[in-house]
């Protein structure tokens, strides 16, 4: 369990994290989302006590992280892939960390095995690919077999097999009752892995909610309607403020309304519907909708259609 209360962190004039409160409950994978520069990494550093907040507090397992002796038994973190001395072998890197918390050599070999680095254990970590570095970072996070795990972009650089592996691992760890905080920009991956979301923008909390609630709360995805009187229906829908994003023969793709309204409209006007499918909003749609105003770094709205002619 991670609990943050009113966390605020400034770097000079920049407010990186602004009065941020959230909880990360045990037994679930909590996705930590936000645009670049939203303050996700800063928040993770504050949780680990690497940076000190200007105000507010955060606890891991009921105490500030830095108050734990041998904190690797409390929480494991993967913050940056290459947080190791490149000249050391993978095994020596882990042994250095293990020694400091009284963790055995056997456990070091076990986590190397778990992340699939046994074969590279005696190779210098400086020569590792990004994916192997991520695996080594994950091994370090798992050293103390901790009840809390915090992973910043862990699938970065992993091959598809690695992505599936890490998803399965995180699901398994959460099912064991552990607290998992996972940040990633890969929305499809997040949709498959997370049970719950904490979304921040410009250092502030935008929302925290279970994934299902979050997806259901939006305006819904585009509905697909089929009707032999498609043209007439389209005109009626447009008059009611809905947007027809596509009109293809008998089929309409409609946003800005609900399937209930479409059905009601058709009944009232005596139009025949041969098909009506509610669109499910994807995590990506909902995320974009929510963070549109808080992205610091965003490409200028391009108009590819215009340039294509």
């Amino acid at each position, binding site marked *: 369990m991670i609990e943050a209360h009113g966390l605020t962190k400034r770097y000079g004039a920049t407010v990186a994290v602004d009065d941020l409160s959230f909880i990360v409950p045990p037994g679930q994978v909590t996705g930590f989302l936000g645009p670049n520069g939203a303050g996700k990494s800063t928040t993770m*550093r504050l949780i*680990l*006590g*690497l*940076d*000190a907040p200007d105000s507010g507090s955060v606890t891991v397992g009921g105490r500030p*992280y*830095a*108050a*734990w*002796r*041998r*904190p*690797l*038994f*409390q929480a494991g*973190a993967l*913050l*940056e892939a*290459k*947080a*190791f*001395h*490149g*000249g*050391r*072998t993978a095994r*020596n890197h882990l*042994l*250095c*960390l*293990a*020694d*400091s*918390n*009284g963790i055995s050599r056997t456990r070091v070999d*076990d986590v190397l095995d*778990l992340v699939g680095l046994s074969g590279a254990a005696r190779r210098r970590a400086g020569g590792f690919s990004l994916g192997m570095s991520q695996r080594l970072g994950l091994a*370090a996070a*798992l050293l*103390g*077999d901790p*009840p809390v795990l915090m992973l910043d972009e862990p699938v970065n650089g992993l091959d598809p097999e690695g992505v599936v592996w890490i998803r399965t691992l995180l699901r398994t760890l959460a099912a*064991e*009752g552990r607290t998992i905080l996972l940040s990633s920009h890969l929305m499809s991956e997040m949709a498959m892995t997370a049970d719950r979301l904490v979304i921040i923008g410009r250092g502030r909390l935008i929302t925290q909610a279970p994934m299902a609630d979050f997806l259901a709360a939006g305006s819904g995805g585009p509905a697909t309607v089929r009707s032999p009187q498609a043209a007439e229906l389209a005109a009626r829908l447009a008059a009611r403020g809905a947007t027809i994003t596509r009109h293809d023969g008998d089929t309409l793709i409609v946003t800005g309304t609900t399937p209930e309204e479409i059905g009601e409209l058709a009944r009232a006007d005596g139009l025949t519907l041969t098909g009506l499918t509610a669109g499910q909003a994807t995590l990506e749609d909902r995320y974009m909708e929510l963070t549109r105003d808080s992205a610091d770094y965003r490409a200028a709205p391009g108009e590819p259609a215009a340039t294509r002619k």
Partner: protein
Amino acid sequence: MPATTTAPPRAGLAPLFAGVLRSEARKLATDRSTTWALLAVVAFNVITAALLGALLPGHLSAHQKATIDSVRISLGGLHLSQVAIGLLGVLAVTGEYGSGMIRATLAAVPQRRLLLTAKALVLTATAAVTSIAACLAAYLAFQSFLPAGDAMRTTLAGPGVLRAVTGAALYLTVLALLGFGLGTVLRSGAGAVAVLFGVLFVPTLLAALLPSSWQDTVGRYLPMNAGDTIYTVRPEAHMLAPWTGFGVFCLYAAAALTAGFALIGRRDA
């Protein structure tokens, strides 16, 4: 993976510190730059001493041999080995900042002063053992090249000889700690090395431009001039007494370490 949800072992301060010491010792031992720096300390000392011992007797008059500080001469390799040991001290801490390892380290050991203490102790022990071996070897190498009956011959039992030889090793050890302190304050290897050797060499060079009366009063308190006294058997009139000079040199290192300990607890990693 074993799903242990048992409470973590209750760790007292003593076993905790033992683990951190072991971790820091492993870090130093598994860092190649440590090996190179330590080899350089021994090699610079011994090779310089052997060359001087082989070449010098033929070039000096009997009078020169009788008045020269032959023990200090035999430790002439210190001019080079101090660079290597200073680098070792700097890298012992800045290496972690440079690689990003420091964040993994501080996440494992959030008790930052305890961590820094362990690092300093491991560095001190490593630097001291290597330096004593290097300085003793240099002295013996120099002596072994001198012809029988040469006026520069001394024994470790001679007045001030053992103090000078072990003192040279202490000088190197404290120099490593000065570099370590500066590294902790500056967190950048290049910056700390520049400041370390700036502090050692530049004041001594500048002091040479001062009027000689100033040189005698101010100059002897400069880091390198003060530190030199401990491996000098025949001091010049304006120098501080050996242990006084060494004490002054220790104060410089203590100042850098104090600043490092004060800052590491306060700064963001």
